[in-house]
Structure formats: structure tokens, C-alpha cells
């Protein structure tokens, strides 16, 4: 884990107010694993006060990529960064995806900006795995396919691909094409993840969920980010024990 002053390389506008930020952060890049995140100080002063957590979207040499949209003041400031501006990045944080093991097909389920951690995952999957990606969003404009493979899309309003949720789309697709040896990797809004969790547990699919919550520190010192353990009467910390959890380990 490092605190690294990272100059912005590029800020690229993807569709509809979605940004892909590339920063030069070689120490973090050299040790990052798919599914981990960084906690970023978006300004040089105390506004906003706290860092903002973002999934490591991709790594290219000494550079890190982050994919985000404008949510509030912090992401607004981030979206206005120019080449050469410096960000203070703390990372890599948390436990990432488990990518080894006994499965053939990596199924990616991404809701909205939940697509963020997957380019780096795809890049790092063992070469013997197949990848199929299901990406959902409110409408066509919010669909992000950056860095994904074999993409099927779903939109709430039907403006692109399947009309409905990513989970429904996946279910449909599964009927046509019973992928074998599935491991599901999911990231997106809480409601979606809860549905995916239930679906996977009911159907006995191996499933890893990347979840979010408000965070102050990002590395286990504030206890601000609890999630209920499914195993015993305790809380796990999303920043330290996650953000990626086995679907059977937590209660959403």
C-alpha cells in the first residue's frame, strides 16, 4: 500500500458524462490486483474533506485507469482534472477478485458504473477461461463496454440490447447457451447485487460480489464501512475484508 502523488495523463470523456481517467502511479500499478480500489484525494485543499474510493479499472504499465461518472462535488472536481494535475492516491486497497480455481467461464455482470473493475479483471484472468460479459444501464447512453469481451447489453428503457436487468438478460442467455463451469463476477447498485446474490445462492453458482459503501479511510481504521457477515454475528469491513466478497459470505 502506498500514498502516491500521481500526475494525470489523460481524462477521456466516454459516453454521457462518464469519464476515464488515466494517471501515472507506478508503485500502485506494480502491485495492484483486479477488484482492488484506490482512495483518491480529488483536491489539494480540504474540500471535499474525505478521499473518494474508486475501483482500479485497468492498469497499463505504470498507469492506472479509473472509470467514473459525476455523482456529487468530488467526482465533479475529478472530472475537471487536466493533464499534469496531480492527485494523491492511496492504494491499492482491499481484497480483489479470486481468479484462480476450478471454473471455465467467467461471467461478468455489470450494472452501470459497476463495469469499472472488469477491464483489469478480464486482462488478468487465466488464459484458459472464457469470458462473457453482461452490461446493464438505464439506457444506451450509460452503457460502458470499455475493456470487456463478448458483451451482451441490457437497458431499462430498451434503447440498447435487451430490455430489462442484466440478471434477466443473463438468465435468458443461459437458456440459449448453457455455459459450463460458471463463476460469476458482479458489480453494480446494491439492489442488483442483492438480486444476483439470491440468484447465485439459489442456483448454486460460485459468485463474487464487489460492493460499495460510504468510506472514510478505506483501509480499516475508521470502522465506517460494515457489512453483515453471513457466517457469524459480526460485521465485516467492506474496505478491508472486501470490497469483493463471496456471495455466501455476506448479507446484503
Amino acid at each position: 500500500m502506498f500514498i502516491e502523488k500521481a500526475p494525470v495523463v489523460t481524462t477521456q470523456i466516454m459516453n454521457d458524462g462518464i469519464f476515464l481517467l488515466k494517471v501515472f502511479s507506478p508503485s500502485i500499478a506494480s502491485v495492484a490486483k483486479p477488484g482492488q480500489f484506490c482512495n483518491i484525494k480529488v483536491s489539494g485543499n480540504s474540500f471535499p474533506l474525505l478521499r473518494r474510493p474508486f475501483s482500479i479499472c485497468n492498469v497499463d504499465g505504470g498507469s492506472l485507469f479509473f472509470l467514473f461518472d459525476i455523482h456529487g462535488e468530488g467526482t465533479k472536481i475529478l472530472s475537471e482534472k487536466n493533464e499534469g494535475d496531480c492527485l494523491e492516491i492511496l492504494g491499492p486497497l482491499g481484497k480483489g477478485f479470486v481468479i484462480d480455481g476450478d471454473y471455465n467461464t467467467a461471467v461478468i455482470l455489470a450494472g452501470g458504473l459497476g463495469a469499472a473493475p472488469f477491464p483489469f479483471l478480464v486482462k488478468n484472468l487465466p488464459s484458459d477461461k472464457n469470458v462473457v460479459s453482461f452490461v446493464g444501464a438505464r439506457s444506451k447512453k450509460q452503457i460502458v463496454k470499455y475493456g470487456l469481451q463478448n458483451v451482451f447489453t441490457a437497458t431499462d428503457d430498451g434503447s440498447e440490447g435487451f430490455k430489462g436487468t442484466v440478471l434477466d438478460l443473463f438468465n435468458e442467455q443461459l437458456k440459449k447457451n448453457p455455459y459450463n463451469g460458471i463463476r460469476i463476477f458482479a458489480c453494480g447498485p446494491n439492489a442488483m447485487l442483492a438480486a444476483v446474490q439470491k440468484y447465485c445462492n439459489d442456483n448454486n453458482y460460485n459468485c463474487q460480489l464487489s460492493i460499495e459503501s460510504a468510506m472514510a479511510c478505506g483501509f480499516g481504521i475508521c470502522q465506517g464501512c460494515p457489512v453483515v457477515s453471513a457466517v457469524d454475528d459480526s460485521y465485516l469491513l467492506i474496505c478491508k475484508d472486501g470490497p469483493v466478497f463471496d456471495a455466501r459470505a455476506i448479507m446484503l
Partner: protein
Amino acid sequence: MSNVNLSVDVGGLKLKNPILLASGTIGYGNEIAEFTDLSKLGGIVTKSLSLKPRKGNPPQRIVETPSGMLNAIGLANVGVEAFINEKIPFLKTLDSALICNIAASSIEEYVECVKILTSIDTIKAFEINVSCPNVKEGGLEFGNNLAAVGKITEQSRLATDKPIIIKLSPNVSRISDFAKVVKENGGNAVSAINTLVGTAFDINTCKPKIKNITGGLSGPAIKPVALAKVLEIKRNVDIPIIGIGGLMNWQDAAEMMIVGASAFQLGTVNFINPNAGIEILNGLINYCEQKSIKNISELTGSFQI
């Protein structure tokens, strides 16, 4: 090496420098040690311990506010036994003073915790938290009651030879009355301040943003209040003060010492810059050198009114 003497004595607690990290903002020290050298600091204060482990409050526990944050962690902690077995081994390796913060729901529980822990050599002092706004039974009620604070001070004083520091609540009219009671009952120092009671609501759902409804406000937003409380104590009661509240940089730390603090604690800033303690140390050394201050303790209460 700097030729400023950085050591301070806080009611018998000797610190190699006045920089402490605040309870609840560094857990038990292990995670933050990845980012900073804790052994360079005066000391660390561990997360409030209760006799038995506490799960803490359900999420959401924190929310950001203008220049501050609200938290209602609910004193999640491993309990005294696990603390001794699992946390002390790491803490023992550090070359800085270990202050153990205790939060309980009865006077008996405070005393029992102190009695058990006082045998641990590594622990150099106790900070008694009578002011946590986020637990129902204890905390706030104690912290607002002069007699209760007096009693807790007296009883925990009897349970150990080590310095007893009482951590005061800012949510009172006259904090100096509480400091006086602490002094009268044999407390060695006071810490001020704990968080201010605050809340935030979601205007779409009309629900509180933190599950506990109210939380404790910390961060730079409360610095002016913390400074005023420390100054009030300093001007009215002769007891060493550990200043806490909204300190972000060495300038803030110097200001806190000037209004009366013998040592100070860093809380929220650790989340943003886990190396802040050491940066502040360096800043203070430089400041003292510029001002030809030989002993950093000369800063304490050096205000000119």
C-alpha cells in the same frame, strides 16, 4: 537531530513528543502502521474498549458534512480479553506510549476494565471515555453529569497507579466545570474534545443518513469549538489538557498548544492522510526552531490575551 526538546509530561504521562493519535481513528494501530512509523509519535490511543466485545452499529455509520464528518460506529471493539491476547503483541513492538481508552456502561465496568488492563506493562495510561455520543446506556449521560464524571474519575483512579485521563464531552454548557471535577477527584489530565452531536437527513427518503439517527461530528469544522473548550479549561482549571478536534496540520497543532494543550490528538485527519502525525511533528520542530523555542512545552498556554 533537532535541538528542540520535544518531550512533554501530561499529568505524569511522559511522552517523547506531544503528538498522539486519537481513539477510534486508528483501530489498534496495525492497519495505519502500513503508512506511517508509529514509533516516531508520542503515543497512540486505542479504540474505546469495553469489557465484552461490541459489534457496533449497523450501517450506514458515517457521512461527510461540510469540512467534517458524522460517525456513529457504536464503539465496535474486540473487548478487553481479545485486546490483550490479539492486539497487545503488536502494540508492544511500538516505541511510543500506549494509552488505552475505555468506554463502559456502568461505573463498575469502567473499574473492572482498568483493573484488568493495568497489569499490562505496555499500557502507559488510561483515557476514560465518558463522552461517546453514540451508545445508548452509557456515554452521553455520564458525560453530561458532573457527579457521574466525578465518581468515574475517583473509582478508576483507585484501580490503577497509571495516569488517568478523562475524555470530556463538548456537549455541555461549561466544560471547565467537568475538568474541575476531574481534578478534584484525582484525575491526572483531561482530553477535550470528543465529537459534537450532529445529524444529517436524506431529503428524498426523509430518513437519517446514519442509521443511529445522530452521530458525532469531527474534523476541521469543529476546530474553533475545540479550541474554545480547551481555552476555557486552561483559563479556569489547573489540570493538564490533551487537545483534540479538527487538527489537520502543524499550524492547527501549534494553535491547539497555544490555547492550552500539553499534548494533542489527531483523529479524522488520519483517514485522509495516515502520515499526518509525522508531517505535523516535522512542521512543529521547524516552527519551534524559527521561534527559538527550546522546549516544545513552552507553547502550552502561551496565548497573549
